[in-house]
């Protein structure tokens, strides 16, 4: 990065009193550090996206198509017809301001347009002007604003300064969900070819190879094999990790970062160890080697295109049901969209744990179970042996990832697992966890290097809560169940709260799991010496 990043001291000096300006008059200040690069035209073209062109947010001219206004107006009209959420949310906001200080980007930046209500007003004002009687007659007095190129620029800036985390929606008396508004805003921008690279390119990769990173099938096989080797080195147990195995009972889908990213990888080893130990008949798929779905951040159609692979592959492989790994937005899609978009999954069976016999009634239609539900059930039934002291080198806290929290309500399952695999566990303050959890600041496709300043700002409330438990309880490990968290929280914490690491829950499960035939375990899955074992080694 060319410019030097501000120090935390300076970054946390935030002015919350808005400048004396009227947000009605668009003033777009796009500077380095707070936006994402436009999509690589090759990726957009691969996905047959409209109006693919080269442009830069820093330029005055974004080379919009000549009929850009018509595209937006028609696109808006079309979405108002298709989404009741949009129509209602455009009409009923009373601007009570309850959402204002709930947004991590507002807390971290003080930019008044990051108050969710104002971010939504950027779009609502156009709606009122173009689609309501009052707005058409009274214009500005009725809160209507003319659609201009500056409005489009503003949308681009602020709809990519929203991580669709839905925290504001928890506090809204009408449940107005900024994520819905941002999603619609992004869909409209996409129509003009104004999509960003860290959404479109992963989506294109995923469409082609099966995962975001564009790893080809043999590469996927390699990384699974590596994990098997590493696990054998670490535990002395060599496990099987089938890929594309027909007739397996369960298809296991993870976010691709699990087998390529750090610290995701250690959680991946944890899954492998667990499945081996309980003798699960499962398979990975190289075709559906991505549960994460960057289509969610692009458009509902793109989400559907990418998500389609999971059911298609489950059908081809002839599995009974599907198990999903630790990932946030992946689970938003699986829980709230998959069955509607690509179901019905009538070729699958209602999920039953082959180990405990538990019927997962809550997944009887979608036929997809969350790994934390699965593992919590195993532990509850005493089906695995655990030695939580193997995690005694960690003082653990848990970060509820936005989507499993507010798009699902997965709160107790991960906590139950954690309580059983580690001895030192401390919750962050109550206004920062569970349904009130704070986003990592990098979700929904904006976790890019070029956007680092905004990410650090957006992640400030989360980091600050971690600071609290670090100061109070010496917490040194933040666990989470989201691949984006695992990728973006380490640099965030390094900046705001150095000394706190990030891990998935199944990494701790893997550490604590007593495996049949294992060697004397002296290190955790990261090859860090276990508490009590380091002294022995160094003496």
């Amino acid at each position, binding site marked *: 990065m060319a410019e030097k990043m501000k120090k935390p001291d300076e970054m946390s000096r935030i002015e*919350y009193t*808005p400048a004396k300006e009227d*947000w009605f008059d668009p003033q777009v200040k796009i500077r380095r550090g707070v936006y994402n690069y436009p999509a690589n035209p090759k990726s957009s073209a691969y996905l*047959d996206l409209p109006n693919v062109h080269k442009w830069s947010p820093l330029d005055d001219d974004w080379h919009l198509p000549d009929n850009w206004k018509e595209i937006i107006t028609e696109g808006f009209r079309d979405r108002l*017809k*298709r989404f*009741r*959420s949009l*129509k*209602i949310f455009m*009409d*009923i906001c*009373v*601007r*009570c*301001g*309850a959402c204002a*200080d*709930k947004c991590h980007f507002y*807390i971290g930046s003080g930019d008044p347009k990051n108050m969710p209500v*104002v971010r939504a*007003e950027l779009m609502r004002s156009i709606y009122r002007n173009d689609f309501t*009687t009052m707005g058409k007659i009274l214009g500005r007095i009725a809160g209507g604003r003319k659609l201009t190129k500056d409005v489009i620029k503003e949308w681009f800036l602020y709809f990519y300064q929203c991580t669709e985390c839905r925290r504001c929606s*928890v*506090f809204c*008396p*009408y*449940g107005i*969900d900024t994520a*819905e508004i941002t999603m619609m805003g992004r869909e409209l921008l996409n129509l003009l070819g104004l999509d960003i690279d860290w959404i479109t390119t992963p989506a294109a990769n995923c469409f082609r*190879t099966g995962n975001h990173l564009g790893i080809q*099938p*043999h590469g996927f*096989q390699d990384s699974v094999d590596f994990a098997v080797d590493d696990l054998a080195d670490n535990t002395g147990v060599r496990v099987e990790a089938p890929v594309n195995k027909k007739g397996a009972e369960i298809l296991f889908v993870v976010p691709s970062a699990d087998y390529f990213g750090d610290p995701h990888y250690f959680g991946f080893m944890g899954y492998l160890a667990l499945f081996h130990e309980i003798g699960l008949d499962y398979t990975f798929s*190289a*075709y559906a080697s991505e549960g994460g779905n960057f289509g969610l951040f692009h458009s*509902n159609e793109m989400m559907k*295109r990418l998500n389609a*692979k999971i059911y*298609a*592959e489950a059908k081809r492989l002839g599995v009974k049901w599907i198990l999903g790994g630790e990932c946030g937005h992946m689970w938003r899609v*699986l829980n*709230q969209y998959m*069955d*509607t978009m690509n179901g019905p999954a009538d070729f699958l069976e209602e999920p039953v744990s082959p180990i405990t016999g538990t019927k997962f009634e809550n997944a009887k239609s*979608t036929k*997809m179970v969350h790994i934390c*539900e699965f593992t*919590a*059930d195993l532990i509850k039934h005493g089906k695995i042996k655990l030695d939580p002291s193997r995690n005694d080198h960690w003082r653990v806290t848990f970060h509820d990832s936005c989507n499993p929290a507010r*798009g*699902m*309500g997965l*709160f*107790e*399952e991960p906590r139950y697992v954690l309580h059983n695999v580690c001895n030192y566990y401390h919750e962050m303050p109550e206004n920062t966890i569970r*349904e009130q959890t704070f986003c990592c600041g990098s979700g929904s496709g904006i976790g890019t290097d070029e956007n680092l300043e905004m990410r650090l700002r957006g992640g*400030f409330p989360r980091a600050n809560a971690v*600071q*609290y438990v670090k100061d109070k309880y010496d917490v040194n490990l933040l666990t989470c169940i989201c691949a984006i968290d695992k990728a973006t929280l380490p640099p965030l914490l390094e900046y705001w709260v150095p000394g706190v690491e990030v891990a998935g829950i199944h990494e701790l499960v893997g550490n604590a799991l007593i495996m049949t035939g294992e060697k004397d375990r002296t290190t955790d899955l990261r090859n860090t010496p276990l508490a009590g074992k380091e002294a022995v080694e160094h003496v």
Partner: protein
Amino acid sequence: MKVMSALLAVIILLLIVIIGVGAGKLHYLFGVIIPYFAIAVFLIGMILRVLRWAGAPVPFRIPTTCGQQKSLPWIRPAKADNPSNLVGVVGRMAAEVFFFRSLFRNTKMELKGGPKIVYGANKWLWAGALVFHYSFLVIFIRHFKFFAEPVPYFVTVTQNFDSFFQVGLPMLYLTDIAIVLALGYLFFRRLVVPQMRYLSMPGDYFPLLLIGTIATTGILMRYFDKVNIFAVKELGIGLLSFHPVAPTGIGLLFYIHLFFVSTLIAYFPFSKLVHLAGVFMSPTRNLANNNRMKRHINPWNPKVKVHTYEEWEDEFRHVMKDAGMPLEKEPVEEVKE
């Protein structure tokens, strides 16, 4: 400033009724025609609004989950904050509509040195909103006495509760004080809190000023410049029975009151006040989080281009073969010229 255009609108409305009734003596227009017109606009406007909302499908089931999901039998679900069935949804909506559940969660964020962010409970907005809405409801119910003879029982009961302390003559209604205080709070927070001033629009100040004027004129008529109740009731009953009489002998204050009520009613369907109906239709609140149990249907579920397994294997067959991965079709050896 945005509050000025709202204030200006209210002043213009005042002038209209003062000139119309005071100078123009247009009692029938302001006493009968405009109220009927306003109610017609309200009814038609609200019905159309709701129909328009209802006409847009709910493609996805997207409740905001604010509590534990229903999953394993030994984990207690949050039945209302994360409903898994209709009963839960009804509970959630009831809590939302009657007690402003979500607003009750409100917190206030403060950044202190360190840096340290603290979140305090902040129930003022919740309390202000609740007091305002319930006072409004009680006052609305009390007004039925002007439309029916004998006065319905529920109206009398409401009145008795409202004048619980039995002070003053006529007896002081608690809601008269409460609504003024609540309106004042809701209005001045928009002016005083910098963020609220930034985000407030004419459409936020205007209804508060309208209702404020209505409340003020109402209070003046009850306690100070007393109005001819019998004439008012005659008008009310006349309006309701569709035999309206042009009322005379009621002061200007009453006409201001009535005209502002009419304006409020007619303004309703075109403003943020439609939240009255919209809150019931919000897809993040009125749907159960049972997506994985019960399939939700999207009526316009689009056909999309997907990348099929066959296309995928066609592209990667050779590398998969080399890696020893299972295949659907064996690769065909290419004949090299």
